[in-house]
């Protein structure tokens, strides 16, 4: 039972690792890496949902009865694009923050902000 669902275990473990990094790490780049791991786990979830044991790619040929569901795969292509855009934007912001604050650590930035207030 447990081994049969190993793909979901991987998803959950990756998801928790990603979320933990986002929450626990103060470095802006590390946070984005965490966010990426978190999002990747969701991609694996979608892809493994579509898979059937012993299936092939969804192409019509003779002698093929089982094929994976192409829809989640296509959905995930879109989600990957979104993920890349988010990562690019997040990294760009991190660069700008480093230029403006002289640091990419959450603590330093918050200290500097509090001084201004």
């Amino acid at each position: 039972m447990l081994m049969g669902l190993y793909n979901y275990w991987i998803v959950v473990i990756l998801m928790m690792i990603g979320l933990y990094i986002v929450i626990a790490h103060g470095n802006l780049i590390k946070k984005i890496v965490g966010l990426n791991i978190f999002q990747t786990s969701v991609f694996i979830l979608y892809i493994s949902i579509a898979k059937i044991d012993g299936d092939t790619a969804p192409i019509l040929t003779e002698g093929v009865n089982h094929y994976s569901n192409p829809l989640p795969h296509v959905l995930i292509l879109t989600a990957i694009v979104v993920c890349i855009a988010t990562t690019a934007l997040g990294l760009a912001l991190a660069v700008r923050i480093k230029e403006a604050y002289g640091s990419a650590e959450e603590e330093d930035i918050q200290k500097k902000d509090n001084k201004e207030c």
Partner: protein
Amino acid sequence: MLTHLVILQVIVPLLAAPLCLFLTSSRLSWFFALISSLITCVISILLLQQVMTVGTIVYELGDWNAPWGIEYRIDKLSAYLLIIISSISTVVLLAAQTSIEEEIPQDRHNVFYVLYLLSLAGMLGIVATGDVFNVFVFLEITSLSAYSLIALGRDRRALWASYQYLIMGTIGATFILIGIGLMYQMTGTLNMNDLSVRLREVDQTRTIFVAFSFIFVGICLKLALFPLHFWLPNAYAYAPSIVTAFFAATSTKVAIYLLIRFTFSVFGLSYSFTALPLQTLLLVLGLLGIFVASIAAIYQQNVKHLFAYSSIAQIGYMVVGISMNTTMGLMATLLHLFNHALMKGALFLALAALIYQTGSVRLSDFQGLGRQMPLTMAAIVLGGLSLIGVPLTVGFVSKWYLVLAAIEVGWWPVAVLMLVASLLAIIYVWRIVEIAYFSPPANGMAQGREIAKEAPLAFLIPVWLLVSSNIYFGIDTRLSVQVAQAASQSLIGLSP
């Protein structure tokens, strides 16, 4: 042509956005953006008329039949939201060019309009679509452009606010994505209408429960429902003023729409309110949000922060309305959604005018502004009165219906608490009035500040347009009440 209005609503701003890049002058792209926003506004009015007379409009993209192809479905709720978003966007754009001249470097003006139109297209798309994955895509289009728009702010804190919003927003959107995936796993469909039927068969499974929980938390993050609101005040305070006016009036409304759409239409009332203790959850979080945010608003020194906290409080009111789970409560929420868009649009635009003239929104710099900028300050006072819920303003109408709805379900303490919270709104609005009208401006001049002049017409016209609609819809409530009532009745009637 008329049958394609549904898709044109989303396509027009989506295509107009990249075209802005090719325009040479920033005035030209402003004009272009304004025209495209105006077109969506006209389309949304036509759509509302059509929906109110003939009922739900269904549009199949590329003529692919519904459960397989993507379907756009405009019912009364969607049409109502479309009008709010597109009209607020048009009015806010009227002031955009003048405002960003001060706040955004010249070479980024075109990009500003590109991002603005993209986020407009995204919001309209979320509301128009009947496909859950499409919701995710449009949500990300809106969010990504929102992060960039916020980062355009002058202050370096805008960058940090935008980054925090990006992290929170992405987690929220990914939660929604997980929920959608789990729903697809159980039902094999992404169409909202189809889902609402098929979920019935599997709604006792844990997978659906997990899907619902993920989607609920994801939406609450986007909604900035207490206690998931920490990204909002800074994002609103440090974004360029025009962006704040646009987002404060529309983006949280879209999240409320999603909450209503998922709990009432997709999962269905009977499931949503039994699977999770949604009633208690929304009621308690809503009330806590109202009080914590209103009290926080009282202590703010930056007026943009002040109104941002007040926005969180108003979200609380809307959520309390949903938690009642009655036609009356839902109607009050929808009314408040419309009314809050009007008041926050007016208030933040007036603040944009203040920033344009004085360059500051610190409360201490408001001294004497009542005399120096009488029209702008009068708009802020009227917007503030509306926020408190004084009769003859829209704020009164929605609070009135909220209290009536609370009494209808027998929640006397809730009704009393909401009235008490309105008193807190009096305090924070009074602080602005007191400083602006009753402190002499002498202090400010001593510091070498020029005497502020009245804002230019580019601000006054849109601000007073919104303020007068605040009063108009406060007196003549037929239109808004009628549509809100029809929308809530069809939503409650929809679910078994």
